[in-house]
């Protein structure tokens, strides 16, 4: 363990495979080819998001037509959506939902993933299969009995039915965290036990720091999933506008025979901004962390 820590963390932006002398021709060609491919991929992935933005600043008449470059730039669309829907209230609700759900997920899923990855116990394999199985019931069907339960508890119309489950069980996160924890060598856990750590201490002192990248990634996905969740908030908070999340705001731009595409895309774009910022920061933390544990030997 000390050997691992002694090695300084490698910076992310240089990739783990040490660059060979870039001066030789093959190296340069390789570099060019890889980067050209990288740029092409980046462009391919970025294009449609650019269209979200372009549609957002189009006039009502141009939005969602074959004409993809705005004839006039209606920047005011971004202001007007704030009049059409109380977006700050929705933002607050979205943050409440996503942050609490993510916190709850971390509290409940890290120990469960640890027990599934690093502890040996009878029934562990069955438990693991059940975790996977839990992801396989179609959400549309599960919603029916669950809605009844929350309704009889008088909690529909609030965010509680959406947040509470994360404090207990989130199959996706448990599964992902377990897989990340499996890549940590068992010897670290055993060493901690020999040193007299309890399982809890081993988890907090060894596994959590080492699995930090995986945890960061899982937390990010949980945050983003809840951020974009549409079905859940619609079902549980639909009739109480004060409780709406940003993702539901999209419904505000659709009528019986009308769709306001530019407003919808403006809201989509605004909704994406916090997520993009979060991703930019989060990826740094988890990729840096990854190289750190990557030096385990």
């Amino acid at each position, binding site marked *: 363990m000390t050997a691992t820590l002694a090695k300084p963390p490698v910076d992310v932006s240089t990739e783990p495979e040490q660059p060979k002398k870039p001066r030789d021709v093959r190296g340069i060609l390789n570099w060019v080819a890889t980067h050209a491919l990288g740029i092409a991929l980046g462009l391919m992935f970025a294009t449609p998001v650019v269209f979200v933005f372009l549609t957002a600043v189009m006039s009502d008449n141009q939005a969602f037509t074959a004409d993809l470059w705005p004839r006039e730039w209606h920047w005011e669309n971004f202001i007007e959506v704030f009049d059409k829907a109380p977006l700050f209230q929705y933002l607050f609700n979205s943050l409440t939902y996503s942050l609490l759900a993510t916190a709850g997920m971390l509290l409940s899923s890290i120990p469960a993933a640890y027990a599934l990855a690093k502890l040996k116990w009878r029934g562990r394999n069955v438990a693991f299969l059940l975790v996977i199985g839990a992801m396989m019931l179609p959400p549309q069907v599960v919603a029916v009995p669950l809605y009844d339960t929350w309704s009889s508890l008088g909690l529909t119309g609030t965010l509680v039915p959406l947040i509470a489950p994360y404090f207990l069980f989130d199959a996706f996160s448990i599964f992902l965290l377990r897989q990340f924890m499996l890549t940590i060598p068992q010897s670290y856990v055993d060493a901690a036990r020999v040193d007299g750590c309890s399982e809890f201490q081993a988890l907090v002192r060894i596994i959590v720091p080492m699995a930090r990248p995986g945890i960061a990634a899982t937390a990010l996905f949980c945050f983003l999933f809840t951020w974009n969740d549409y079905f859940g908030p619609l079902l549980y908070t639909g*009739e109480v506008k004060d409780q709406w999340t940003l993702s539901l705001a999209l419904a505000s731009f659709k009528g019986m*025979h009308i769709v306001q595409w530019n407003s919808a895309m403006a809201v989509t774009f605004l909704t994406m901004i916090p997520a993009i910022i979060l991703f930019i920061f989060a990826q740094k933390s988890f990729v840096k962390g990854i190289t750190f544990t990557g030096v385990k030997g």
Partner: protein
Amino acid sequence: MRKHTRAALLCVAAALTLTACAAGKGGGANSDAAAAPGKDDKLTLTVWSNYSDREYEEVTKALKTFNKKFPNIEIKHEGSQDDDKITAGIRSGNTPDVALSFTTDNIGSFCSTGAFQPLKPYLDRDKVDLNQISPAVRDYTEYKGNRCAMPMLTDVYAMYYNTGMFSDAGISAPPKTLDELFEDAKKLTKKSANGDIEVAGYLPTMGFYANRPTILAPNFGAEWATADGKSGLSTSPGFTEMMTFQKKLVDFYGFDQLERFRAGLGQEYSADHAFHQGKIAIMMDGEYRTAFLKAQAPQIKFNTAPFPTWKPADYGTAFTTGTIMGIPKGAKNPGAAWELIKHLSFDTDTIVDLSNAIKNVPSTKAAMDSPKLEVDEQFKTFIDLAKSDKLKGNPVTPIGDAHIKAVTDFAAEYTSGKVPDLAAGLKKVDQSIDDQIAKSGK
């Protein structure tokens, strides 16, 4: 033995769902009309609808006119509530007092399951004259004589045609028969040098835009059910004619070329709609399109007329459907809810104002005759069709939209040339619809 397991299972089910209790709770209230509120009663009525933005504001304004009669009833209107949400609410007793739904296709289920309360007791008590509403509109708001909803405005479908293209092609009058429609469509179609379609006279793709079998059915005299209540697609010559006619048009364009053309057309609810863009010359659509065309495509010169019919005697028929209002099971103030529904269904000023605001056809005869109703040349076609006794409503079954989906699927498949035997194909669709109705047991 079987009885026991059955009882046990039901117990489990009941415990699991609580619906059994809910069923008992709501059941009694259905047979009588709840008392109307006093003039000055203070209470809150919640209304759920799927409107948003400008339409939402206008509907809210219409709802508020109720306060002239009951000044102390507060109306809470929640927009953007879809049907799934309404269903979930009804199941758990978390319901509004009045629900507005766009999905007329579900009326059979709403009535037969009791999701919407029967309105007959109220109609009888208040001696409401339903003849103010046209028979076709009455048809799509009830199921097997059980009226569980009232209409809030209607949509009527007719032919739109591009007058500029008509005069360019030397066509002087809109087509009235299928033969004329076919000939005009041919004349109006423009192809480029390499054979690509540039303008389609009439787009026959089934299921695209409003070109749907449900909407076309009245014009072909197509009957959905036989006299004994079975699905009657294969026995109704109208359906056979509809399929044959659309197929003939598809073959005229060539399926592959037509598909390539259609795949590039814009969305129905955008300014890119093919008719707005001058890419189709004739189409079937609802009255709401007149307002969109004027706002979004002022350069397009168009007019409207009844859609051509197979049999000349049928000319002047049209399809109608619309928003429905009901009192969900478990509503807290059914008596007051009924008063609100009655107000929106029959108060002429309210209906006319709302109709002017959101450009739908009024649902009562009095409102259609009101001098305050704004009617221009293009909109007049729809009002005339709505007044006609040839108007036909959405077909109602207890299986939601399953019958409509089955026919639309078959039409698309047949017109693409994948079904060799039309009669056998329609029989199969009948069989499948009958199976599903039998399964529903209603």
